[in-house]
């Protein structure tokens, strides 16, 4: 197996791009990543995306984007794993380069959501839940997370306001990220007073839908230095699954898929949670941050919220999370989100995060979650310069 590195990164601003199509967004991110890596050619393109068919009426977007980008003829496919599609695309590229099948692989995440109305998007997203046994009963992703959050509060003795530090930290960290959707810090008072969507989940517990695209270029580490002064090694990339429906889980408050994929990644890289300088968490809702921190071993059961309350998730804390804004404040273009996490992680590890730069960022991890935990992708990256 070959060692694999990221030699280029690219992204577009997350937001409402009413003037840009899905293929344009994808092309801009791909082009930016290829320029960053100083390459004109790739062997294959893996496009992470969840809802192109449902929301834009276009499937088959691997070849659509390849053709639009002037790469007609190249191997290109779409990878779908709900909100985990972005990092799943990286996993496919990693397999291709590590296995010696391809040398230069572009891994992309792209999503176009804002052309459609809110309830249409809500229903489309609910397709990542169990259609016959969750969505048929009127559940959306917000309400599924609300069920988890209520039970978590009940079992571990927290109030709704105890989740505020996750949202406050995310918004504070997005202020200096030029690609983030929001640049406004929020206060505890704003969090407490924010509008209820599905009790106990309020607007400021939730990440916003958006358009976006992000991309990385992978190559064998042995030749990475020929293309960049700052290669970032992929130390591990692992996917694990769990039941799609929350009611089928052995314990709804434990993300088994998160634990399994983190353990696979730790053992592949020969490291543990204590070695991490930062963790890009999948904060689609505040409760998911807590559950992911616990599944990945950064906090024990029921202590994910306590870790946030102690300030340990902020820059300078024991394990900084959502360092460029996270899903909450950078925005959550679902199938692109996992790739934004990786582009941001690589930006920190390259020391290029500007005012968002952490002091010591050499080894970092991202966890990208599909649905309410049915697909979890864990990626570990390391500076190698």
């Amino acid at each position: 197996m070959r060692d694999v590195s990221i030699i280029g990164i690219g992204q577009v601003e997350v937001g409402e791009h009413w003037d840009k199509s899905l293929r344009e967004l994808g092309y801009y991110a791909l082009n930016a990543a290829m320029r960053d890596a100083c390459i004109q050619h790739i062997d294959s393109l893996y496009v992470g995306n969840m809802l192109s068919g449902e929301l834009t009426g276009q499937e088959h977007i691997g070849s659509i984007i390849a053709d639009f980008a002037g790469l007609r003829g190249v191997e290109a496919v779409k990878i779908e794993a709900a909100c985990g599609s972005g990092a799943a695309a990286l996993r496919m590229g990693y397999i291709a380069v590590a296995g010696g099948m391809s040398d230069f692989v572009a891994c992309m995440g792209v999503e176009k959501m804002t052309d459609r109305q809110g309830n249409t998007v809500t229903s489309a997203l609910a397709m990542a839940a169990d259609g016959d046994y969750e969505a048929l009963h009127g559940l959306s992703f917000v309400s599924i997370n609300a069920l988890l959050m209520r039970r978590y509060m009940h079992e571990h003795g927290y109030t709704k306001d105890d989740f505020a530090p996750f949202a406050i930290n995310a918004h504070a960290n997005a202020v200096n990220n030029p690609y983030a959707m929001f640049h406004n810090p929020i206060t505890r008072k704003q969090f407490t007073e924010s509008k209820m969507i599905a009790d106990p989940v309020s607007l400021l517990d939730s990440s916003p839908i958006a358009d976006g695209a992000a991309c990385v270029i992978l190559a064998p580490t042995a030749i990475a230095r020929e293309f960049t002064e700052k290669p970032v090694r992929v130390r591990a990339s692992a996917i694990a699954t769990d039941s799609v429906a929350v009611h089928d889980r052995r314990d709804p408050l434990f993300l088994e898929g998160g634990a399994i994929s983190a353990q696979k990644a730790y053992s592949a890289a020969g490291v543990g949670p204590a070695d991490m300088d930062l963790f890009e968490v999948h904060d689609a809702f505040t409760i998911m941050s807590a559950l992911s921190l616990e599944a990945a071993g950064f906090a024990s059961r029921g202590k994910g919220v306590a870790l946030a309350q102690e300030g340990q998730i902020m820059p300078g804390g024991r394990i900084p999370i959502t360092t460029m804004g996270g899903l909450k404040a950078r925005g959550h273009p679902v199938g692109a989100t996992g790739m934004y996490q990786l582009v941001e992680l690589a930006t920190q590890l390259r020391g290029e995060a500007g005012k968002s730069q952490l002091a010591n960022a050499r080894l970092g991890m991202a966890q990208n979650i599909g649905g309410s935990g049915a697909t979890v992708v864990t990626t570990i990256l390391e500076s190698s310069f």
Partner: protein
Amino acid sequence: MEVARFWRTTGQRYQLTGEICPNCGNKIFPPRDVCPTCEHEAKTAYTFSGKGEVYSYSTIHAAPEGFEKYVPYTVALVRLQEGPLITAQLTDVDTHEVKVGMPVEMVTRVLREDGERGMLVYGYKFRPAVASPR
């Protein structure tokens, strides 16, 4: 909802018919043909009592497509007496009175209508358990 899909799952939605694992005795809902505990094939039908208690709940103010007119409505995870958790709406209850641990029982109600001339989809919901002499 497509007619065939609706028809396939009537036993589950009208009577809470799931399965029992012939190997480990695990009671399974929704039916899935392979026991998630011991991985043995489990195709023996088993009908649940419909009694359980609220494990968690939430009231929805922003509904997915097709559910807008029911807003606000309350959804729950219910722990059935026989073991499994089930996702369903609560009915015949004041939202403010719902609590974790509240005893509930299954009733059959309309889940959704597919438009003016579309199909009515019936299925299980749960209401506060009516106290009965034991």
